């Protein structure tokens, strides 16, 4: 349960980090370490070099304007939970952050690290897909902006090249008149989700995203269509069927997702307590 040997680098600037990433073989970026350290401790990975980016001050900054907020890569879950950085989504980001693991994990885990890790049962991949956030990525070869929906390609698989660093995460402001609902189902507080439903309800339109159902967060297009075509509340079985068509899930799993989505719809519509967290 101890990591294999590696060389450790602690750059002070993004440029220095990019230089190291471009030049070193088998190097990995170290953010908060809250996903990488368990992996290293269990020796599921043994990189030759770790590039710790948490000493880079420029990556701690945030910028806010009318369009939204841009968070430096090493912004921690705790900073979002405690409101130390602005929230452009009227409570959704602090609510989501507070449900991630435990306080000690949230004090170190970072928003960019969570996206780069790409686990669809984690909070940020699904929440930030729903909000249509984007990451700013840099390497020695140039800069690019990747929407989160295009960044996440599968379990632990992203569109990032080996020499690329996420420097910031840009979250657009939640549109006026949009209400959100979020339901995370997990076996115990602090565990990864078994179902993670985000609903965005605005006049004439309901958008639904689901995490922990497939290898990447999925938008439930079929379910949205069924909802749009129905007058009044729809039966849980009908919801489950539509979610099955959207995700390929069946049986108990499909039922769990249907319950999570229904509760998230109810919270977005203001029918129950906002964003109730459910443990099964």
């Amino acid at each position, binding site marked *: 349960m101890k990591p294999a040997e590696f*060389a450790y680098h602690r750059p002070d600037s993004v440029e220095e980090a990019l230089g190291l990433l471009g030049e070193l073989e088998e190097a990995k970026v*170290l953010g908060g370490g809250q996903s990488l350290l368990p992996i290293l*401790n269990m020796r599921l990975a043994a990189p030759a070099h770790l590039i710790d980016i948490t000493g880079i001050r420029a990556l701690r900054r945030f910028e806010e304007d009318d369009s939204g907020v841009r968070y430096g890569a090493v912004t921690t879950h*705790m900073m979002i939970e405690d409101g130390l950085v602005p929230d452009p989504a009227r409570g959704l980001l602090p609510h989501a952050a507070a449900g991630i*693991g435990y*306080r000690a994990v949230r004090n170190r885990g970072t928003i960019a690290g969570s996206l780069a890790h790409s686990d669809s049962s984690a909070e940020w991949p699904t929440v930030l897909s729903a909000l249509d956030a984007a990451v700013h990525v840099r390497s020695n070869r140039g800069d690019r902006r990747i929407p989160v929906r295009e960044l996440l390609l599968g379990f632990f698989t992203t569109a990032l090249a080996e020499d690329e660093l996420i420097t910031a995460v840009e979250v657009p402001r939640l549109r006026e008149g949009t209400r959100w609902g979020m339901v995370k189902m997990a076996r115990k*507080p*602090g565990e990864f989700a078994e179902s993670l439903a985000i609903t965005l309800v605005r006049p004439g339109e309901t958008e639904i995203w689901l995490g922990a159902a497939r290898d990447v967060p999925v938008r439930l297009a079929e379910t949205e269509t069924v909802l749009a075509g129905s007058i009044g509340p729809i039966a849980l079985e009908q919801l489950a069927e539509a979610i099955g068509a959207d995700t390929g899930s069946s049986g108990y799993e499909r039922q769990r997702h249907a319950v999570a989505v229904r509760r998230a719809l109810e919270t977005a519509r203001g029918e129950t307590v906002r964003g109730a967290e459910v443990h099964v």
Partner: protein
Amino acid sequence: MSEITVELTVNRRARTATVPARTTLADLLRDSFGLTGTHLGCEQGVCGACTVLLDELPVRACLTLAASCQGSEVVTIEGLDGPDAERIRAAFSREGALQCGFCTPGMVLSCYELARRRQVLTRDEACMAMSGNICRCTGYNGIIRAVRSAIAEGIESES
């Protein structure tokens, strides 16, 4: 480059150590400094036995590299003192919040951060806030009683 030298403050004492880069904060504390009150249960972030304060915030010492703590201030169970710490220790003892004591250092450090916030927690909120610390012998009722009681006494001490 696979060895690093790290300078940090541990329990208010300046310390320097040269260790392999792969050394976690937990192993630095235990093996280099002999501070074995920081316990290792799972080494994957789940149990909370290794919880220490890093720049005043609780973190998993098993998921923090010693190298990342350059220039930081660490407080372990051995160095936790002051009125809040005393109230927490007394409450744990009074409420029967421990048996073997393996989880206790982590429990006390997590509780310390809660007590410092001077915010009343309902029983459910206290359970949620302490859910990152696992105890395998006591059952959680005594622990939650102790946590809430220490928080309440902290608030009372200032009113």
